[in-house]
């Protein structure tokens, strides 16, 4: 009996699911709006190569930039075209999602 149990115990260890390493809060309107941003800026907004990080920057600065992209005051490749798809309120939610309070 002992040996099969030993085998079983190892088997359980090997197959036990690891806890997810990072868990966010339940989805909210900001996180749903922010979903596509992650495709370029990274899952948590930490940037990649030449694509700037969003994480760790003040939300107020992010909001100003998003609005400047939308108006064209700040030149961009694609951000101007994307920012035009969001209302003031939605841009605020995006800035709050990625930025520091």
């Amino acid at each position: 009996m002992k040996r099969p149990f030993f085998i079983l115990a190892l088997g359980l260890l090997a197959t036990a699911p690891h806890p997810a390493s990072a868990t966010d809060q339940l989805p909210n309107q900001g996180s749903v709006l922010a979903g596509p941003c992650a495709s370029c800026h990274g899952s948590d907004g930490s940037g990649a190569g030449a694509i700037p990080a969003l994480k760790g920057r003040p939300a107020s600065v992010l909001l100003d930039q998003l609005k400047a992209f939308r108006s064209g005051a700040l030149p961009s490749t694609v951000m101007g075209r994307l920012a035009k798809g969001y209302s003031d309120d939605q841009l605020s939610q995006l800035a709050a999602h990625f930025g520091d309070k």
Partner: protein
Amino acid sequence: MTTRLSRRSFGLLAGAAALGGLSACATRPPAKARVVVIGGGFGGATTAKYIRRLDPAIDVTLVERSKSFVTCPFSNAVIGGLQDISTITHSYDALSERWGVDVIHDEAIAIDTVKKVVALKGGRQLSYDKLVVAPGIDFKWDAIEGYDEKAAEILPHAWKAGAQTITLRRQLEALEDGGVVALSVPANPYRCPPGPYERASLIAHYLKTKKPKSKLLILDGKDSFSKQGLFQDAWAKLYPGLIEWVPLSKDGKITKVDAAARVLESEFGTKHKVAVANVIPPQQAGAIAHVAGLVDKSGWVPVDAKTFEAKQAKDVYVVGDATIANPQPKSGFIANAHGKVVAATIVNAVNGKGQLEPSWANTCYSLIAPDYGITVAGVYRVGDKGLEEVPGSGGVSPKDADAQFRALEARYARDWYKSITTDTWG
């Protein structure tokens, strides 16, 4: 662990396994819900990961045939000889090890949407509370006479990345300078609207660099295409005289092939004998969507615009290329965006919270040369008549942009690839 188990001890082990299962339940809280995801591409893998990321108390099983996934994005760069296929190949290790997704390498062959059970080819049956179907595309093998899976070994489609990508690359490497390459493109809708024209560009880049006497013929089943002005301006500038585009109205639609002779025949009987032919056939939703009765007459899956729940079955969500989601394009970017919205929808439903207002965005990068990138972007929402692009948003890169702008978009394309593949499989 070399002990050979006798029949008797195997029986004991099986009994112990049953007990072990019970004790595992006693030490861990039972799962809030069981979600099965069919298909591990951009849409399916993202949904599986994000459900676990949002709520680890939900069990997620991902069913995927392949041990690793080769992306269509940047497969044109492999075909054009700019990078190796290993750079676009992704494993499922992070999904299982980091996120606790139960990844099963098998094939879903049937879905009972009433009993809520998925049957796998290997014999297993998976019951679900919520099912996500992300089957991507399959080809309509009967649409072009003479073009079937066997013919595709000689005239590759390379529209599902992997072995076919390598076949096409090798044919281009073997091409003699001066040979004609043909690219047959279907009518809409199909996976990745600008993809064939990016492919034409990167094949042209290879030919110009290595086989400058060669030509590329695009035989098209339509009269206009995504980012057309930007592509054609760039072709005239970078590859003058190398690319000829034959639209539908000039008899560009290919209806018949002779694979052995490498002859493509058009609707009105023009025969093109070429050295290399890349035939991208007409497409439909992946097979399991048909088997499960999720498709309509078009061969694609109608979904509720807000939830992406299949119109034909309750608690079955469909993401990615298989869906009817106009005006959203069939792109990896959108499939990943679908995955996140559906993950949020399922997690909130399981937790008794209401449906959030969905939102999607897309940016399709295309490389015309290694340092020349262009984009088309869009932001999407649910309007009064269903899915719509937010008025005033999106559009293509400016027509008059300078070389620095094009180089920056090419650089962003590569960085986007790093981000989205990590977001999906990392």
